[in-house]
C-alpha cells in the first residue's frame, strides 16, 4: 500500500513540476542576485530610491505608471522617501485638476495623493509619438512578463549590434532577449545618463538593477509584508502541526491501527 501511495505522490509532484515550469525560456535570462528573492527577501531602499530616479529621468519620458501614487514612494516596504521628499517629488509635477467653480480646468502642483502623472494624455497619443508602438504602462510590468524581474533586467542589458544576417528597419533595434529579437525601444540606459544623487556610479548595469528593483516593488508593493507574514505563518503552522500530530498519535493509540 505505502508503495502505491508513494507512486501516487510522485505523479502528483510530476504534475506540479510540469504545470509550474511549463515552457522554459529558450534564451537563458540574466539573473542577478536580487535582494527581494527568497523567503526573507527584502528590497534595498537605496536601490529603490535610485531606481525611482532612473524611472523618473529616463523611462517616464515614454512609460506611464498610472496605478501608483506619489504617496506610495513614502510607504513602508517601498523606497521609503521621507514625507518632505515625497511632497517635493509630488510638487515637481503639474497636475490638471478641476473643474473649478467657474467650470474651468486648471493646473496645480502635485500632491502626494495624486497618481503618477503620465507624459501622454492617452494610449493613442503614446503610440503615435513612438512610431506606433505603445510603451506599456509600467505599474505591473514585472508581473506581466514571463521571467519577471530577470526578464526586464535582461532586456535592459540585451542590446547588441545585430548579427550580419539580420536587417533592421528604421526605429527597430536588436535585443537578444526580446521575442523575435527585435524591439522598438532604443537602448534606454547608457553609462552616465543619470547622475545619482547618492554618488553611486551610474553604470549601465547599476541603473538596470536599480530600475528593475523599483519596477518589482511597483508591481508588488506589499512584497516585504508578504514575506514577513508568510515566514511567521509557516513557523506557526509547523509548530501547530507537530502538536496536532502528537495529539493524533495519542488518540489513535487507543485503537490497534497505525496512523
Amino acid at each position, binding site marked *: 500500500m505505502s508503495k502505491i501511495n508513494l507512486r501516487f505522490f510522485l505523479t502528483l509532484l510530476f504534475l506540479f513540476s510540469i504545470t509550474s515550469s511549463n515552457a522554459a525560456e529558450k534564451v537563458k535570462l540574466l539573473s542577478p542576485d536580487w535582494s527581494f528573492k527568497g523567503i526573507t527577501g527584502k528590497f534595498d531602499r537605496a536601490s529603490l530610491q535610485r531606481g525611482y530616479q532612473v524611472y523618473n529621468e529616463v523611462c517616464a519620458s515614454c512609460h506611464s505608471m498610472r496605478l501608483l501614487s506619489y504617496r506610495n514612494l513614502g510607504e513602508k516596504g517601498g523606497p521609503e522617501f521621507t514625507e518632505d521628499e515625497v511632497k517635493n517629488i509630488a510638487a515637481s509635477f503639474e497636475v490638471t485638476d478641476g473643474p473649478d467653480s467657474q467650470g474651468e480646468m486648471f493646473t496645480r502642483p502635485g500632491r502626494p495623493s495624486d497618481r503618477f502623472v503620465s507624459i501622454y494624455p492617452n494610449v493613442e497619443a503614446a503610440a503615435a509619438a513612438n512610431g506606433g508602438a505603445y510603451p506599456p504602462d509600467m505599474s505591473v510590468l514585472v508581473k506581466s512578463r514571463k521571467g519577471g524581474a530577470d526578464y526586464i533586467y535582461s532586456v535592459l542589458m540585451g542590446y547588441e549590434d545585430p548579427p550580419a544576417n539580420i536587417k533592421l528597419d528604421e526605429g527597430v533595434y536588436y535585443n537578444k532577449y526580446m521575442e523575435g529579437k527585435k524591439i522598438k525601444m532604443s537602448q534606454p540606459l547608457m553609462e552616465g545618463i543619470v547622475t545619482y544623487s547618492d554618488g553611486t556610479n551610474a553604470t549601465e548595469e547599476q541603473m538596470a538593477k536599480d530600475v528593475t528593483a523599483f519596477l518589482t516593488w511597483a508591481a508588488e508593493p506589499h512584497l516585504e509584508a508578504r514575506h514577513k507574514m508568510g*515566514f511567521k505563518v509557516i513557523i506557526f503552522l509547523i509548530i501547530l502541526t507537530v502538536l496536532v500530530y502528537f495529539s493524533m498519535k495519542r488518540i489513535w493509540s487507543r485503537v490497534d491501527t497505525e496512523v
Partner: protein
Amino acid sequence: MSDTPYVPSSKFGKWFNDRLPLLTLSAHLQDYPTPKNLNYWWTFGGILTFCLVTQIVTGLVLAMHYVAHADLAFDSIEHIMRDVNYGWLLRYIHSNGASMFFLAVYIHIFRALFYGSYKSPREVIWIIGMLIYILMMATAFMGYVLPWGQMSFWGATVITNLFSAIPFVGEGITTWLWGGYSVDNPTLTRFFSLHYLFPFIILGLVILHIWALHVPGNNNPIGIDIKKPSKDTVPFHPYITIKDLFALLIFIIIFSGFIFFSPNVMGHPDNYIQANPLITPTHIVPEWYLLPFYAILRSVPDKLGGVILLFASIFILLALPWLDKSKVRSAVFRPIYRIFFWVLIIDVLALGYVGAMPAEGLYLLIARVGTAYYFLHFLVILPFLSRVEKTDPLPLSISEPVFGGMPKPAMMKSDKKNKNE
C-alpha cells in the same frame, strides 16, 4: 457509538431537539462510525470543505471591493492589491485557493477511482460529486474572467465560442451568453453574478454529497462492506477529526508556501495586462486544471467534434458506476485494473501537458493518442475488464486478515447475517 437513539441531557435540549433535531444531527456527526483503516487519501474530503469555505469567505470580502465593469475591473483588482488592507492577502488566497481546490479535488476523484468508491451502493455520492466538479470548473472559469486581463478576456472568448459549434442554434446561444456580439461588459457582469451564485449551489450539493455518504458510510482501502459500528470502525470524533486536521494543516502549509512565496506561478503573466480586444495573445491557455480537457478539445480537427468530445469526456464520468461492473471495489485486489489506473493517470497528465503546448506536430499527436486512450479506458477497458479480471481474494474484515470475503454482494449479505448471529 451506541445504537440507541440520542437523547439530550438538558430539558431545554430535549424540548428543542423534539422540534428540530439539530442535536441528534450533531451527535450523529460525532459518533458516525468510520472505517479505522482509512488512509491519508481519505482526508481530502475535509480538505475540500475547507477549500470551499475559504473561497466563499475570501470571495465575499473581495466582492466588497471589486468593480464588475469592463473599464474598471482591472484597476479595482489592483486597488485591492495596493490599497485595501490585506487585500493582497485575500486576493492571493482566493486565486491560489482555486488551484489548491482543484489539486485537492483531483486527488479526491482519483482516490475514488482507485478504491472503487463510485460503486454500489455509492453511485449517488459519485454523481453528486461529479456535478460539484462540473460546477467548480464553471465557477473557476468565470472567476478567472473577472480580473479582466488578457487571458481572462481571450479565455472567455475561446470557451464561450465553443457553443457556436452547435448546429443551427450555436450562434444564437453564444450571443445570448455574451449579452452582445462579443465578450464585453455584459459578459463580465453576468459572469460576476454567476461566480457569486455557483459556490452556494456547490455548498448545497456538498451537503447532499455528505448526506448521501452517511447513508452507506465510507468506503475504505480494502473496499469490503463492513459492519457498523464494530471493531472495524472508530467514531468520527475524535479519531477522524484529528486525523483530518493534521492532514489539513500539512495542506495549509503547502498552500501558504504558494500564497506568501510564489503567489503568481499558477497564473499566467498575460493576465496582468489589461484586456484588449484588438490584441490576441500568441498562445491562449486556460488555467492548469482545465488543460487535459483543452487538449481533448484541440485534438479534433473539427470544431463541433472537439466540443462533443470535450463534453463527452466530462459526462462519461457520470456513467462510471455502470461502466465498471466489477464487484470488487478496491484496486488493491484488482491486479489488472491497478495497472490501467496508473496508465490513466499518466494519460491525463500527458493530456494536461500537451494542453499547455501549441497544438502542432508531436504535441498534437500525443493529444490525439491520449484522447483516444481516455475514451478507450472508460468505454472499452473498464466494461471488458470487469468481466474477465481475476481478482485477488478479499479479507473478511478490516481487523481480521483472513481471506474469505466474497466479491458477490449477495453472498456478502449472507456473510454479514452469519456474523450478526
